[in-house]
């Protein structure tokens, strides 16, 4: 290993807390900026709010998918647990979503641990296929148990705007809510990345057998990562339900829109990095909205063709995502300047 490389890696390992959280604050400030500037623009603030939400959920997926290297395509299950449970309890018992978000997230984490416990025996593509099957089972069940989920007709939440109901008159209020969510998830990621569990997850991702050989309880680490990821995803589901105020099985279980979308956003941004999923959402969601509006009448589905194409290209040529690309460019510029620090 040459000198510059070792310098870089030790530097990355011992980033001080102040520097990391400083970067976090800087990033969050940049992320909040478009929301603050455009809060009066009804069209844009809608897109921005949704971007924040998807950034948060993608970052939640990234905890197990990116840090842990377990490519779940079934996160739609946890997302819909949050959405359905919130909507059902709010409609039937009129409880404030604020009160039930956390208990529901805990339930989602428990479900995640329960269904992942056997599935984590599977590796690579087999794990992905199994999670895909979970998503399909959940889709069928959501259609079947219509007393709980409203079946194919879905659940509608009536519009009673108040802070306690988590229903707002203005879109910018939702944007603040979604921003709070993404700030929370990214903060959890930053903190996690500095804990023992975070390093264990990375070790499991890099080489499961070596991780086990060095005394890591691989299954436990994966389960903890999955539970945390699922809980945060469920919170995203809660916000999604209160934001749209209408949910049905297709909106919650369509893979290119939900389960795979989380992974896609992370891939475009940079899987396994903290900034990656947020960056991915910032790039993808507004772009997708633009494409949808552009092609809605002339060529239905064109937006998904382009997204699919991007996905193929990213898998082929940009495995580390936009964030990785930026880092590489930065590295090159630094390299050209010479070895002087």
């Amino acid at each position, binding site marked *: 290993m040459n000198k510059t490389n070792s310098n870089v890696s030790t530097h990355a390992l011992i980033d001080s807390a102040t520097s990391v959280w400083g970067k976090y604050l800087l990033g969050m400030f940049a992320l909040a900026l478009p929301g603050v500037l455009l809060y009066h623009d009804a069209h844009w603030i809608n897109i921005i709010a949704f971007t924040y939400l998807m950034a948060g959920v993608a970052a939640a997926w990234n905890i197990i998918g990116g840090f842990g*290297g377990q*490519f779940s*395509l079934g996160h739609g299950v946890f997302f819909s647990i949050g959405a359905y449970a919130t909507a059902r309890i709010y409609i039937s018992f009129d409880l404030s979503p604020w009160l039930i978000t956390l208990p529901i997230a805990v339930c989602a984490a428990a479900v995640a641990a329960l269904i992942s416990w*056997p*599935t984590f*025996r*599977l*590796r*690579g*593509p*087999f794990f*992905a*296929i*199994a999670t*895909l*099957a*979970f998503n*399909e*089972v959940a889709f*069928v*069940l959501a*259609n*079947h148990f219509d007393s709980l989920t409203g079946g194919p007709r879905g659940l509608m939440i009536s519009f009673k705007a108040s802070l306690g109901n988590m229903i707002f008159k203005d879109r910018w209020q939702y944007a603040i809510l979604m921003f709070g969510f993404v700030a929370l998830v990214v903060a959890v990621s930053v903190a996690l990345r500095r804990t023992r569990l975070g390093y264990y997850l990375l070790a499991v991702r890099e080489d499961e057998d070596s991780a086990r050989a060095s005394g890591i309880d691989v299954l436990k680490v994966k389960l903890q990562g999955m539970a945390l990821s699922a809980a945060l995803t469920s919170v995203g589901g809660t916000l999604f339900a209160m934001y749209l105020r209408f949910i049905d099985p297709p909106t919650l279980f369509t*893979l*290119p829109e939900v389960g*795979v979308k989380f*992974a*896609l956003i992370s*891939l475009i941004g940079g899987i396994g990095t903290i900034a990656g999923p947020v960056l991915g959402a910032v790039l993808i969601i507004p772009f997708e909205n633009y494409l949808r509006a552009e092609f809605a009448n002339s*060529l*239905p*589905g*064109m*937006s*998904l*063709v382009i*997204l*699919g*194409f*991007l*996905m*193929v*290209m*990213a*898998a*082929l040529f940009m*495995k580390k995502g936009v964030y990785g690309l930026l880092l590489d460019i930065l590295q090159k510029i630094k390299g050209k300047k010479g070895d002087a620090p």
Partner: protein
Amino acid sequence: MDQILNVLVVGLLLGGIYGLVSIGLNLIFGVVRIVNFAQGELVMFGMYGSYFAYNQMGINPYLSVFIVAPLVGLLGVAIQRFVIQPLHAESNMQIFATFGLLMMFQNIMLAISKGEAWSVGGTMGTLVWDIGDIKVSVVRFISFAAVTLITIGLHFFLKQTIAGKAIRAVTQDKRAARAMGINVERTYLITFGIGSALAGLAGVLLTPIYAITPGVGGNFILAAFAVVVLGGLGSVCGAYIGGMIVGVVEAFAGFYIDPVLRSAVWFLIFLIVLIVRPSGLMGQVGAEEVGFREQN
């Protein structure tokens, strides 16, 4: 009793369809371990191909197999060469790339068809043979017979011919296969091509049975993976039996439990088998690790 027998026949014929759509994936995923989520879309292309051949050129839906299947096979070769081959060591990226292809193919057809469901006209789809009290749909029986023949053919191809042996050798140990003078890249191209052509063939045979929509492949893809894994990775006959299991389970669950839940039942069976015995019912233990262990 008659009722049970009738449901069983319906289930076996359905199993034939599942076997048919998964036979290509059986080669691509089961034998050479390439994760191809776009397999259902290759079936869909087969259906559209057969539809166009019938509508534009008046070719009998079954005869168009000889044009459509090779074309879909060529598409498969192109996918293998330009998308899968650069990603041969990374199954996670294969998942992403082929899912991207799935989204592209589905929505390209959505843009072309404007979301309308098409179907090949005529009465062939409704023809029924009465055997005693049991009704057998003719078009479904044809696909059942086809999958049986193809399974037998594929089995002998893999076990007896040099090309088939080369394919299995490449799966088991790429480096050793190369040392024996096998052109590994070409073997992959051939395998993916055949697997895709079989998907196209399945699509053609299904044209009289299903309405043709851009999303039709989505109905098949998980079933296909389930069939391949259930039967046993790398076991052609296993996949045939896996297809029958899925079909029969779905028919019985749909009849006796609830039509809505019918697929959930075999999803659960699939999950249980995947978890308890990932090498499948007829696969060798540890088969799920072969081909992923050392993909260099």
